[in-house]
């Protein structure tokens, strides 16, 4: 990915030198044509075309925003309900992603969605221990959240 981006920057600067206009606009135009050239030659790279990864990152971001808003609403509903009928607890969640930064990202995403908070990562990096405000709610939805987040993260790192 880094190599392809560097190549793309190089092509953009080449474009600027060819046009002899050194403005951000001409840089962007050059970057765009560089993308097109890289796309045409994508089968010659050992990695896949890097724009796929960029799109996956953007998708992950929007997925995260959606979860953030939805789960915030559910916690707010819990807080203002007249009877505080919550069942907090810590449960273990086995994870499939392996690299350190993927686990970090997954743990942080789970922490940032309200109602769940990563308390500990097990020593062998295979289990996340998650504290949940209302474990009944979470048990249903956590698999969905985990699946979607984990799939999106794998899509980025693939």
């Amino acid at each position, binding site marked *: 990915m880094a190599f392809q981006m560097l190549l793309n920057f190089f092509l953009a600067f080449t474009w600027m030198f060819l046009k002899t206009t050194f403005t951000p606009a001409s840089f962007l135009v050059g970057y765009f044509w560089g993308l097109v050239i890289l796309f045409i030659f994508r089968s010659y790279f050992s990695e896949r075309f890097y724009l796929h990864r960029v799109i996956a990152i953007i998708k992950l971001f929007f997925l995260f925003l959606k979860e*953030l*808003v939805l789960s*915030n609403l559910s*916690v*707010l509903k*819990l*807080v*203002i309900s007249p009877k*505080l009928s*919550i*069942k*907090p*607890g*810590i*449960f*273990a969640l086995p994870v499939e992603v392996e690299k350190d930064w993927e686990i970090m990202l997954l*743990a*942080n*995403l789970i*922490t*940032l*969605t*309200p*109602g769940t*908070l*990563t*308390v*500990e990562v*097990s020593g062998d990096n295979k*289990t996340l*221990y998650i*504290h949940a*405000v209302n*474990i009944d709610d979470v048990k249903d939805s956590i698999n969905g959240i985990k699946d979607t987040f984990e799939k999106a993260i794998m899509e980025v790192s693939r």
Partner: protein
Amino acid sequence: MTETYEIIIGVMVLLGAIISLIATIGALRFPDFYTRNHAISKSTTLGVSIVLLSALLYFIFFEAHFNSRLVLAILFILMTAPVSGHLIGRAAYNSGVKLADRSVVDDLKRDRQKLQKRKKTQ
């Protein structure tokens, strides 16, 4: 047209403030440390983000410039809030803060006990 913008921005500021307020109420009502940590460390994230976002919109609509510092502020809040939330929770658990009585399960305790038993038998 400016009035519409004013109303949109005003509603967003109010929304952020209300979310923060409810999070604070949650901190008072929840039974133990961990659940309070939930309420404080995250619902406020959304609240503050919305307030900052409305400030960003204000600058775009009324001052006609894109204030990139506000975007940075939102990004950094989103990046740092989960780390602090996780570390505070982890530190609390490792220093032995008890879960509330109404807690149902504690898988971490179970797994740690298993690990200790295995160490003893070895």
